[in-house]
């Protein structure tokens, strides 16, 4: 067979970088909006701030078609199993942003009903503080997420065959 090109280091790193470049500019997001931060998400997504400029154009209304889960708002204990189901329905690779103070830490709702941060339910990549966060902070977090996606060790179809 000779040299397997997929084991060549140069090819691997280049393909990894190329996949990261492709994935970071076509993030389909799924807004899981439960509270007032949804207004701020809408203003960030609409024409004034327009997250489409950064490659977050498509809002998908099913988790099965999306790469990025935006948890926007308060998650109460009763909502936690639903959020986990939604997260598990998403295909790999997937990322999560906790949007606003309630999603980050429970916010002002330190009580019997509210989950103290969605990272108690699902893994989170980027946290956006603020009550609600400014659209500029949303854009900043999206750029940070893009950097993270670019740096990630990407998973692709032939990789496991090559390494195993």
């Amino acid at each position, binding site marked *: 067979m000779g040299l397997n090109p997929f084991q060549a280091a140069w090819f691997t790193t280049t393909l990894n970088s190329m996949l990261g470049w492709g994935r970071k500019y076509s993030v389909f997001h799924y807004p899981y909006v439960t509270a007032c931060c949804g207004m701020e998400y809408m203003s960030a997504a609409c024409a004034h701030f327009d997250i489409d400029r950064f490659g977050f154009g498509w809002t998908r209304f099913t988790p099965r078609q999306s790469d990025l889960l935006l948890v926007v708002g308060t998650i109460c204990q009763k909502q936690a199993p639903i959020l986990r189901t939604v997260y598990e329905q998403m295909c790999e690779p997937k990322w999560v942003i906790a949007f606003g103070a309630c999603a980050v830490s429970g916010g002002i709702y330190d009580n*019997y009903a509210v989950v103290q941060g969605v990272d108690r339910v699902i893994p989170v990549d980027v946290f956006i503080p603020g009550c609600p966060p400014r659209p500029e902070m949303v854009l900043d977090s999206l750029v940070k997420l893009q950097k993270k996606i670019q740096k990630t060790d990407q998973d692709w179809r032939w990789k496991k065959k090559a390494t195993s």
Partner: protein
Amino acid sequence: MEEKSDVLSDLAARVPGAVLETSAPLGDLTIVIRPESLFEVAAALKDGPGGFATLLDLTCVDFPDRPDRFEMVYHFFALSGLRRLRVKLRLPASEPAVASLTPLWKIADWMEREAYDLFGVTFIGHPYLRRLFMNEEFVGHPLRKDYPWRKRQPVIPLRTP
């Protein structure tokens, strides 16, 4: 004030001995009644001369230091005269129970379920007395003052971030 005395005299005629105290803070008539006469008082208010045909709100207050710990508060509204009436009654700490108003107002259904869920007040005659906000497995009543304020009852096991 004549209208208010009308309401009171009608109540005294139809449900004698029900009203324990009256006051009028901020201009709204407030009466404290015996808990067992709630249903008769509410029915008398609904078709009485005051015209209090609307049940605005129904809630509970927990006073842990009082012997009669729970205070139910009912707000009635008369659309004809744009007047409000507040009815209060006091319930004991152990097994608080009061008559349900769902036969008179359908809106009382969910509000009584809320008071049952958060305070543990039982409403006798309610068709479907079940928790409204919290999940079914929840233990205790979270708005009681003796509920530990940091106590959490997760529905699913939470992960450690």
